């Protein structure tokens, strides 16, 4: 019974999270699609949490090897993903205030 309850709760969360994903993403302008893909890419680095769970339970050599690679892979996904996304977004700035008083109008 409680297993079924837990599974139903998990599936509910899964489906609602998918709908949230659709709703949030569909509003993003095309300009930001590449940074957005990269940002979403970093979010699935959350798999690091799962990798840590298997690592602390790893006792056999094979399990230890799998955990080590999983933790390293996941961390690379997280750290690299956020840093490269930040580098991209850092570039979306208006012209440095000094030279361009003209092109900076309130173009909507």
């Amino acid at each position: 019974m409680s297993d079924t309850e837990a599974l139903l709760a998990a599936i509910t969360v899964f489906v609602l999270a998918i709908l949230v994903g659709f709703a949030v993403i569909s509003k993003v302008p095309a300009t930001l699609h590449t940074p957005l893909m990269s940002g979403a890419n970093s979010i699935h680095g959350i798999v690091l949490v799962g990798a840590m769970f298997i690592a602390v339970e790893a006792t056999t050599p094979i399990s230890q090897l799998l955990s080590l690679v999983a933790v390293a892979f996941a961390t690379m996904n997280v750290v690299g993903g956020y840093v490269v996304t930040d580098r991209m977004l850092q570039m979306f700035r208006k012209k440095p205030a000094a030279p361009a008083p003209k092109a900076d109008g309130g173009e909507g």
Partner: protein
Amino acid sequence: MDYETLFVIVRLIWLAGAALFVLGLMRMNSPATARNGNIQSAIGMAVAVGATAVLLLARPTGSEGFNAVGWLLIVIGIAIGGGLGLYTARTVKMTAMPQLVSLFNAVGGGAAALIAIDDYLKLAAAPSPQVNVATVLDIVIGSITFTGSLIASGKLMGRIPGKPILIPGGRIVTAGLAAIVAIGAIYLWAGNLSVPVVGVILIAALVFGVTMTLPIGGADMPVVISLLNSFTGTAVAMAGFVLNNVVLIIAGALVGASGAILTKLMADAMNRSVVNIMIGGFGGGDSVAGAVGAEGASVRELGIDDAAIQLAYAQHVIVVPGYGLAVAQAQHAVRELADLLEARGVDVKYAIHPVAGRMPGHMNVLLAEANVPYPQLKEMDDINPEFERADVALVIGANDVTNPAARRAGTPVSGMPILDVDHAKSIIVMKRSMGKGYAGIDNELYTNAKTGMLFADAKDGLAALTAAVKAL
């Protein structure tokens, strides 16, 4: 505080982390708040991972006692992965960024698959149906993503030829691998516990990732990467079901959905269906129908000096950058020319097609890197009415997205949204040769009487143009 209470608190922190992911993505709606949104998302990640570490440290140890080796593995893994991620992310050139995103996606999918493999090896009996389904899906999707993303990344890096690689009977091999995976999965879902069968599924899925991606052309890679990004999200959500961890389910589903939407948007902008791209080839027989129009019409070639004069004495110039500019890494060169023209009082704008560059939005990133002010970058719908007022449209390495044939039915580009470059008073096309674009058809823009062709590599051509304008 006892462990149970701590576990409740940690689960609430995970929820907060997941909420930060959603809020972060929402803030990426606008260029002004996007960077902030990404930082918010990163904070969510740090909080979730930190809380996990505290939880695992406080967990009552079993008969084996504190697993020092396990913690050592975590520390080493984080050091290696974090170091590699940080180094590559900070040193990559912005033009090479799509392949790095693909590489990060590959390792994410790989990590998700490894978790499921490890989980399966520990089983003593066939698991409950939901865990069984999630484990197999996690292994299959994660493995396909891992090799598929590596191939996609290799294609963009040029390590693997970008053009479609067609192995004789390749489709049959791919279909056969899919069948092996499906049969194996059904066998396991029927309640059998078999490590060898999982091994066969794993190998078949890994090879499937390769054979699926190899036949797809380099220009389609963005769509493939986006699709694989969505796959990884799904694999991570499955890992959440395996480990019964809600934060993995939420974050994975969020990315799975976002990747799916992005994939569709990218494919739509190229007037292609995702299915078409994955099956490979640009419609084969269909493209014969595209050979209508100005076959054999003559083109007018333009010299650097003529082009420089046209640009320097124009009032409104619209620059149309494309794939060729991205490949030649000419984003700084184009900005230098634009600055020079602006200094002469010319109004310069950039028309950005949704799929210009190597990924949707990639051109904006490249131009932003070259310090082109954001307000000068115009999206297709905003700029199209302005072409009529433009004295010169300067097309640099863009082809299919400017082809007026798209407005007619019966060509491979029909229905694709295009930039109305042909409405400008005069057109300069900078291009290396008369080579065809991705769609494999002639561009009617080039034979238009208003068009002058400037045959040059984007970077060299722009440097020559800048020098010529300076000399005026």
